[in-house]
Structure formats: structure tokens, C-alpha cells
């Protein structure tokens, strides 16, 4: 509604000189319906951004939604995180003489890393050129930095896991395990920068919190998988890691879901909202069950499965929310329009007239 509260017909003098799109009711209805749906989905929460003017070009997205495929990319995010935590767990378990935990953790790390690489390559438009990822190292590209983390990480974890399976080179295995553990930390979080360093509103605006969501989610997954597969007497650290990770995941995700006004909305609505609600349920229940997991293997398996499922669902939910925010132009236009208007009122009136500084 570009006319604001100016009376119909006064036309001249209001923003845009009273012009509005004349392409008939269908397109305008579409726009209105979608915005209404957003409000309903908000479940009575106060909209952070006013229902101000929102114009789009026939409802088309302003930015291009990511071409990344699902389930490839969400699984790549999940597996990389689970493998990263497991590599750290494995090296520390080896160092503190917990052979069963070390074996499970290293096998998880190796398997997860390989599968993660597999999904990444499968998602490429030209999979045969995957080695071009290592052609340069660019700090402005989280995917470039990430490739340089993922490549040595997957090599080291695969070597460590292979040494476990074959029983070869026990000393060398310690070195590769430690190397993988050092890279394991960044493995859990670089994928967050991969999502946030885009123009996708709901990802970009959450760029301070998403790395912590991913770190917590990775700890929950890595801890959960190893807790479920390790005998009780060695699985203590895995249980603690899973519980801490679940708590961090829930806390950080709460800030993502509520801290960013309009662009937090896609995390609470639609398919992403359902996925993230299910994720919350799984993660919280799993974390609660982890308190009993020291006494019963069944509880450990159940808890591990729940927090791991929660981690998977979180990745799918975050991915979906970003896609939804990219597809609907309101998430791109409204915050930018509000920012520009604020600057225009703060700055000189001239800027508003010429529109300098788009």
C-alpha cells in the first residue's frame, strides 16, 4: 500500500506520487494472502516490523534462492558436525585410555567425514570438478576455507578409522587422531559461516548465533552417536558432551528463532517451523534421558538416538527456513526498506528526494 494514509485520489505528494501496480487483483491478492499467512503463523506474537509498505515485482523473489539440494546439503551439515565432535572425542578417549570409546568415535568421525564429502560432491553442478575447490584458498569464502578444513580432516579421520579397523599402525593412529581432533573444532562451525555469508535474510541476520547452534548441534550428534554405541563404563564423556551440546543447541536456536524480528519468522512457520519444533522435542527429551543414560544401556541408546535426530532435524529446519526467506520477497524488501527509510530520515532531506544511496 504505497499511498499510506493519504486519501485516495490525492495521488501527488505521497511516496511514489500515488502510483501503484495496476496489474489487477490476482497478483495483489497473492501478496496479501501470503503476508496474512505469515501473521497467523506467528501465533499471536507481536510483529517486530510494522506492516509497512511492501512492494515487489509480481511477488517474485528479489534474491535467488539457493540451488543447493536437499537432503544433500542438510546431511552434509549434520555429518560434518557429528564427525568433527567425534574426532575430538576419539583423540581424547585414546589419550585417556578408553579404547572402546576411541574406536567408536574414530569410526564415526571417519564415516561421517567421508559421507559428508560425498554429499558435498554430489551437490555440485559439475561433480567431476570437485578438486577445483582446492585450486585457491580464499578467506572471503567459507566454502573455500571449509574445503581446506574438510579435505585434511576427512583424510586424517579416514586414516585413523582405517587403522582402527585393520589394527595397523597404533602409534601413527594417535598422530592422525590428534590432527583430526584439532580440525574437528572448526569442522563443527565453518558450515554456519557457509550459510550466513549469503544474502539469504534469515541466515545472514543470524550470523552471530548460527555458529553456536551448529556447535551445539554437532556436540549433541557426536556425543549422542558415540554414547549409544559405546559400553556404559566408557561412555561418560560422550554423555556429557551430548547433554551440553543439546543445551547449547536449544539455547542458541531460541535466539535465532526469536531474536531477529521479521527474519526470525521463517524459523517458526511452515515446514521449517514444524521441523524445528520436532527438533526441539527430540533434543530436549534426549537431553533429559541422558541423565539416566549412565545407568542403562537402553536409556543411552534412546537418548543418543533422540539428540542425534534432533540435530538432523535442526539442520533440515534451518536449511528450510533460509529457503523460505529467500523465496518470499518481503523478507528481503521490508528490512532493507526500513533501514533505508531510517537513514533517509536521519540524513538530509536531499537524500530522500534523489534516492541517493540505494
Amino acid at each position: 500500500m504505497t499511498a499510506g494514509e493519504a486519501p485516495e485520489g490525492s495521488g501527488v505528494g505521497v511516496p511514489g506520487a500515488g502510483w501503484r501496480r495496476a496489474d489487477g487483483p490476482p497478483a495483489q491478492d497473492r501478496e496479501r494472502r501470503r503476508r496474512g499467512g505469515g501473521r497467523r503463523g506467528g501465533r499471536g506474537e507481536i510483529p517486530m516490523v510494522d506492516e509497512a509498505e511492501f512492494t515487489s515485482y509480481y511477488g517474485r523473489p528479489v534474491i535467488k534462492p539457493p540451488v543447493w539440494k536437499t537432503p544433500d546439503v542438510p546431511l552434509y551439515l549434520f555429518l560434518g558436525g557429528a564427525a568433527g565432535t567425534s574426532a575430538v572425542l576419539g583423540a581424547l578417549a585414546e589419550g585417556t585410555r578408553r579404547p572402546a570409546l576411541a574406536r567408536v568415535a574414530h569410526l564415526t568421525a571417519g564415516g561421517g567425514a567421508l559421507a559428508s564429502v560425498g554429499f558435498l560432491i554430489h551437490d555440485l553442478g559439475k561433480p567431476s570438478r570437485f578438486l577445483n575447490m582446492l585450486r585457491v584458498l580464499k578467506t572471503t569464502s567459507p566454502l573455500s576455507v571449509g574445503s581446506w578444513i574438510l579435505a585434511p580432516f576427512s583424510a586424517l579421520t579416514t586414516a585413523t578409522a582405517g587403522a582402527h579397523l585393520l589394527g595397523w599402525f597404533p602409534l601413527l593412529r594417535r598422530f592422525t587422531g590428534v590432527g583430526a581432533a584439532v580440525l574437528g573444532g572448526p569442522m563443527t562451525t565453518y558450515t554456519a559461516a557457509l550459510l550466513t555469508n549469503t544474502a539469504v535474510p534469515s541466515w545472514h541476520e543470524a550470523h552471530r548465533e548460527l555458529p553456536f547452534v551448529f556447535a551445539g548441534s554437532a556436540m549433541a550428534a557426536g556425543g549422542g552417536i558415540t554414547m549409544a554405541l559405546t559400553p556404559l563404563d566408557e561412555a561418560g564423556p560422550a554423555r556429557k558432551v551430548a547433554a551440553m551440546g543439546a543445551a547449547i543447541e536449544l539455547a542458541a536456536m531460541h535466539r535465532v528463532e526469536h531474536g531477529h524480528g521479521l527474519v526470525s519468522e521463517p524459523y517458526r512457520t511452515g515446514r521449517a517451523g514444524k521441523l524445528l519444533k520436532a527438533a526441539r522435542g527430540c533434543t530436549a527429551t534426549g537431553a533429559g534421558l541422558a541423565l539416566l543414560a549412565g545407568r542403562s544401556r537402553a536409556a543411552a541408546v534412546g537418548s543418543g538416538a533422540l539428540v542425534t535426530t534432533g540435530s538432523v532435524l535442526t539442520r533440515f529446519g534451518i536449511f528450510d527456513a533460509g529457503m523460505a526467506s529467500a523465496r518470499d520477497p518481503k523478507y528481503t524488501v521490508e528490512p532493507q526498506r526500513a533501514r533505508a527509510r531510517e537513514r533517509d530520515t536521519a540524513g538530509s532531506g536531499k537524500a530522500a528526494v534523489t534516492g541517493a544511496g540505494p
Partner: protein
Amino acid sequence: MTTISSASAAFTGEDPGNRLFGPVPDVTGDRGYADDHPARVGFFTDTSVCIGCKACEVACKEWNLLPMDDAEGTVDALGLTGASYDNTGMLGANSWRHVAFVEQSRAVDLPMPTVGLPGAAGGQRPLEDPPVVHPQVPASATTAEQSAPLQTSSGDREIRWLMSSDVCKHCTHAACLDVCPTGSLFRTEFGTVVVQEDICNGCGYCVPACPYGVIDQRQDDGRVFKCTLCYDRLTDGLQPACASACPTESIQFGDLDALQARADERLAALQAKGVEGARLYGRDETDGVGGAGAFFLLLDEPEVYGLPPDPVVTTRDLPAMWKSVGAGAAMVLGLVASAFVGRRR
């Protein structure tokens, strides 16, 4: 070397040379070209004289051998949007120029011929119909100077068409280039941004990174494509195909400095004529992308044309992102280590 200084900017956030954000006087030299590099070139698209003929789209497709596609980017599909004369729909891998059509209407307070008492206010008006643009309707109502707005038969509404040929902005801070992990996207000696198709591995990272939604993946190919500002023609001293084909000089090609000066003059001229709503888009070097190599004169808000009102290059926030990533990674290492402290079990 350039790579090292950019590394420190992305990680530390200390960016005196505006490598991530802010104005860059010589973006070409800044990216390592020798001092005798050509001047930065660009497009000035003056939408006030665009007639929506789409010659630019056709010339671009012909010259660059782009496949036919529909408004959703489906290759070899023929489709009508049903929404307007615009069946190209958007910029994408197969459409590097896109003419937007916006039909607008507004209510006008037209003086109706009245028969009243002599001396009454309405009675002073002439009985015959006023000219198409009434004196009370300022010239801003017109689509610049190209045409008078048309009145519908009802007499109290008028319509106008906005037409604008959109193109890759060849940003000073190009997010697509920044995030490309293979180095396939690069800055040319002309200051433009081009994809090297023999390097692109189709990771798709540039697609959501672009704040304008320009670059896209070609579905049956897997690689990404976008406007090259006719890099091949530039190296042979020709101007880009779209600018050559434009019959109204709505698309002007040239050295960016000269285009900016011309655009400022044009804007001043339109404003002097009372054209409300005229504005330059992408001209300001202090904007979120450090100014665009291809900028526009628009007659309405950018979002009306499908352009973002206040785009910001995503890498502006990269130092904060890396900081969070580092803190998160350290937290994982620390907390997992802490889980091994204490009683065994």
C-alpha cells in the same frame, strides 16, 4: 600480496583499504592489475527513456548464444507469465538482460466539466475536456518525458508503464566473486566481474550470495552463468551487445566516471522538469556494495522494479562471522575436553 591483506581483513575485521566494504576508488588496480589498466567501464541504464522493446535481451541472447528459457529459467521451454508483457521474468543463467514491465495506475483529481451557477468555484472551469495532462497534475505524473499518462475512460484514473532493463551490477564489492571457492569468478582489467566457465564446478555458492539475485545455475549444465559485460567484445574495442542494440540510448556504455557525470546531469535535468520520483540507483559509492558498475535511473522505488532497496554485500559481516565460527570451534574443543575431566565413567 593481495591475498594476504585480504586474509587479514576477513579474519581480523581491520579493513583500512575497504577490501570487504566501503568505497574503493580504483577497484581494478586494487585487485592487482598494473597501473596502466583500462578505466573501469559500466552501464548507465536510463529507464526514463526505455520503451520496453527488449532489443537488449535479444542482442544479448544472440551474441552470447544463450539458450531459450521460460520465466523460471527452464531451458528450452516456452512460457508466458500471464502477468505482463514480461515473459523473461528474471535475470538468470540464460537471461543476462531482463526488461521489467510495471503497469501502474493512480487516482487523479480531474476537474470535471461542471454546469453550475455563474461565479461558483466550479463554474470557472471550461466546459470542454482538459488536455490529457491537466495543469494541476504536475509533470511528475508522466513517465519522464516520453509520454503523457493515459487516462482511462472513467476519467479519474491514469496509468503509466515503467520499463527497465535490468542487468548484472558488476559491484565494487561483488559477493559472488568473494564467496566463489574455486576462483572461477574474477575481476577483469575493465573492473567487471566474469565467470570462467572452464573453472566453475557448480557449487552454487554465488547464487544466494548475490544481493540482487542476478547469477544463477543453468539447470541442464550445472555451472553458473551471468552477464560478462561482453568481455569478449570489450577486448576487441566493441561496446556490449545490449548497449549497441538499444534504440533509445536507455542503455549507455562507457567509462564509469563519464557515465556517472552524465547520470548526475540527467537526474538534475529531470528534477528541474519536476519529475518526481526520479533517482539514481547504484550510483552512490558509499552504498552497501561500494557502488555498482551498472547503475540505473529509476522513476519509482527500486523494489517496484524487483530490485532490493538497500542491498549490502554479505562479506561486510564476514569478520563477525569468522569470530563466531572461531569462538564456537574453541567452545567445542574446550567443552569436549572438559567432559573428560573428573571421575572416570
